[in-house]
Each structure stands twice: as structure tokens, then as C-alpha cells.
């Protein structure tokens, strides 16, 4: 476990709204750390529709999902946020008082943060791997079925079945081929979305008989307890056969799940966090919820609504962090002190 990280604000989620929260907090001298379970910033815009145009960002007649994220990253640069990717916020424990809130936040990597305010910008929830609806798969998870590879060593000497046709499937099939007894890649068709060089590398290994490629889909699993012994596969011709394996890695993309947020003691309404519309604060003073994750009368899940929400939440956060400082309303166009913070004066 690493040392405790202390910060003014911790932002859960690096989607567009979490990113803009860095900006609004930064203008009020509040430094932020940002956490996301994804390996990069941008939330839904970057993960689900990087190439698609968005038409309702004020001031941008059209901008792609990734374009917006790139611009936001540039816009928040002056505030030097610290990003922690590939990390999920697991638990939140209040350690302050309602007047002077503080929270101890722990991630799934057991990194501990102590923060004055917590800004939950978790969107539709954390992106998590889709689980194939195969009967009994739960029993094998963690011992024989994995949705991500944490340690390659765990696969040494095993018969690994990798299912999928994207970059994750191809990359892991190629990497694990070096340590596993045998790797079989299975996909429903002989066409891949993965990078062409990975596909070529896979085809070469298959031609050299150092890897197997099977056309088909897993329909069932066999094994005892949590030890997998094989997969029941429906082949291209519709016939079913057994494929022996003792490790299965299905890669079917990501879906958004609320995840641990449900256990943080916050008032929820249909899996969304209830907030007021003055400060976008939850029932727990010092915890704000902004963007797609929150709900209030009239809520619209739009990026522009999230931007508005963080501006107001930041005002309240300032009062917790600088209780003795009066907050002056200022424009970035004309305030020399704001411009100094932005590095443009």
C-alpha cells in the first residue's frame, strides 16, 4: 500500500463533466485529483463514441467525442490535476464534520486518499467488462474465468481460451501465448476489429501451430467447483463440441455498472444520486454528484447540464475549503486574478 494522498478535492470519474470540474474548482484555488477505472480520460465520449460528432456543445457547431475530450484536457492544463487511471473508487468513509467535511477514500488498488470534498462524476457508473450470459460462469470467476489479466504468471502452463475479436482479445492471446501451455483464440467470425499487425501476428502463430484459432461461440462450461475443465462450443456449422481449457478470458467490451457507489450511504433514486439544484450536493455534506450520475427534478443527461452543475458545486466546495474567504464573482475575460491562474495574464 502506498502513502495516503491528501487533496482538497477528489473527483471520481474523468468523463467530460469530471474534467470540467477540475476547471471550475481550479478557478477557485481548489486542487484536484481525478480517478477513473478506464485507462484514459473522457468517459463515454472517449470510450463509446470518440469519432462521432456532438452537435449541442455551446459554441461548437460540431465536435467529435474525442475532440471535446482533447479540448477539455487542454483547458484544464493550467490547474495540473493529478490523474489516477485504471483505478476504481471502492469505498468512502466520512472522517470530518458537516461543517468541515473530510473523507477517506480507498481504491481497488488500496490507494488511500484523504480529501476535503468529493465530487462524484461517475456518469452511468464505472465501465466494467461485459459478462457473457453463460450458465454457471459465476462459479469460475477469479479462479478460471477472468475479464482482465492482472498477472501473466497466473496463466503459466495453463490451457487458455480467449474469446473475442477486438484488440483486448488479440493482445492477450498473443501475450499469453508466451507463458501458457496452449492458447486458443475463439471468435464468431474470421474477421477482426483488432489492429492489423496483431491479427497478422496471430495468423502467423496459428500457421506455425503455436496457437489455435477456432470459429465458434461458448455456450456452456464444464468443470468441478471453481475449476474449469472445458468449454462447450457451438461451431460455425451449428454443431456443438467440447474444448478442453482451464482458463477462460471472454472479451465482449464494456458496460456501465453503478458499482460500489451504491454502498456509500448516499440517497439514490433508480440508481442515480439525488442532489439539490443549488449546489448539486448529496445528502452527505461535502459530497457532490454531477453529470449523468445525478438526478433532480428536470434532470437532462447532457454534457452542457453537467458543465453548469460543476460550476455551482465548486462555489459550495469553496466554502468548505476556505470558510473564511469571501468568494467574489468574477469573469475569466476581465479578472486579472483568474487570468493569472489560467496562466494567460
Amino acid at each position: 500500500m502506498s502513502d495516503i494522498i491528501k487533496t482538497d478535492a477528489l473527483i471520481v470519474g474523468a468523463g467530460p463533466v469530471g474534467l470540467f470540474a477540475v476547471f471550475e474548482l481550479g478557478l477557485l484555488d481548489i486542487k484536484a485529483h481525478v480517478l477513473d477505472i478506464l485507462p484514459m480520460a473522457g468517459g463515454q465520449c472517449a470510450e463509446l463514441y470518440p469519432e462521432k460528432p456532438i452537435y449541442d456543445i455551446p459554441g461548437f457547431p460540431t465536435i467529435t467525442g474525442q475532440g471535446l475530450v482533447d479540448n477539455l484536457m487542454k483547458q484544464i492544463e493550467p490547474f495540473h490535476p493529478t490523474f489516477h487511471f485504471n483505478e476504481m473508487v471502492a469505498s468512502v468513509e466520512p472522517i470530518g464534520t458537516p461543517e468541515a467535511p473530510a473523507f477517506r477514500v480507498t481504491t481497488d488498488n488500496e490507494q488511500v486518499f484523504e480529501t476535503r470534498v468529493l465530487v462524484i462524476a461517475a456518469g452511468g457508473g464505472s465501465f466494467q467488462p461485459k459478462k457473457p450470459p453463460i450458465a454457471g460462469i459465476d462459479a469460475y470467476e477469479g479462479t478460471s474465468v477472468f475479464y482482465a489479466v492482472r498477472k501473466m504468471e497466473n496463466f503459466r502452463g495453463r490451457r487458455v481460451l480467449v474469446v473475442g475479436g477486438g484488440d483486448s482479445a488479440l493482445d492477450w492471446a498473443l501475450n499469453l501465448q508466451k507463458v501458457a501451455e496452449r492458447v486458443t483464440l475463439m471468435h464468431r467470425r474470421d474477421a477482426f476489429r483488432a489492429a492489423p499487425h496483431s491479427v497478422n501476428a496471430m495468423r502467423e502463430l496459428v500457421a506455425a501451430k503455436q496457437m489455435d484459432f477456432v470459429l465458434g461461440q461458448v455456450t456452456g462450461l464444464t468443470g468441478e467447483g471453481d475449476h474449469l475443465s472445458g468449454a462447450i462450443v457451438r461451431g460455425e456449422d451449428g454443431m456443438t463440441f467440447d474444448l478442453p481449457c482451464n482458463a477462460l478470458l471472454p472479451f465482449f467490451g464494456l458496460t456501465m455498472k453503478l458499482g460500489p457507489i451504491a454502498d456509500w450511504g448516499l440517497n439514490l433514486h433508480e440508481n442515480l444520486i439525488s442532489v439539490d439544484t443549488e449546489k448539486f450536493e448529496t445528502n452527505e455534506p461535502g459530497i457532490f454528484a454531477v453529470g449523468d450520475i445525478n438526478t433532480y427534478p428536470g434532470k437532462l443527461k447532457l454534457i452542457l447540464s453537467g458543465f453548469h452543475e460543476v460550476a455551482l458545486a465548486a462555489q459550495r466546495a469553496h466554502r468548505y475549503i476556505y470558510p473564511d474567504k469571501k468568494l467574489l464573482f468574477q469573469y475569466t475575460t476581465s479578472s486579472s486574478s483568474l487570468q493569472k491562474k489560467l496562466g494567460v495574464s
Partner: protein
Amino acid sequence: MVQIIFIDSTGQSRSVEGDEGATVMETALKNSVPGIEAECGGACACATCHVYVDESWAARLPEAQPMEEDMLDFAFDVRPTSRLSCQIRVSGAIDGLVVHTPERQG
């Protein structure tokens, strides 16, 4: 108005009217047809609007674009008749279309 028939995994059939130009996915949501989630709102980015086109219709729809084929890789129990309903446009040519919704969208 174009008629579209959704049959769920238990065999229950629901016949609804779709507007020309809308998608089959939108028609399902608008009429509260269960079994279609459409997490991404029709951007061909989630594969949770997966349907099986009835055999009688399979050859009568325009073929799936490569983007749809790619996204079908993220659906489960994909069959030759699998389609993403957000990529099928409602038009007079598909009046009476029959699609089956899967047991689970994943």
C-alpha cells in the same frame, strides 16, 4: 405507419406501429417493448439492441454495414440472423417485419 412484430424469448408477441425514418430500436423503446436496452442510444456502440430477424425476413433486409458487424462481436449468442435493431430503419419496405429479442442483452 409500419407494423413491426417483436417476439420475446418466452414466445410472447407484441405488434407495434413504427414511424418511417425511425429505427426498429427506437420503435421498441417508444412502445415499451421489453428485451431491448439500447444503452448507447442508437450509436452502434453497445450491442444491447441485439435482435434475431425472423427467418422469413432475413433475406429481405438490407445487409449489415461493417460497423454493425463489428459491434455484433460484443453481443452474445450471435446467429446468422443477428442484427442490431438501431441499425434497421423503419420504412414501407419492412412493413410486417418480425424480430425475436434474445433472453438477455448481456
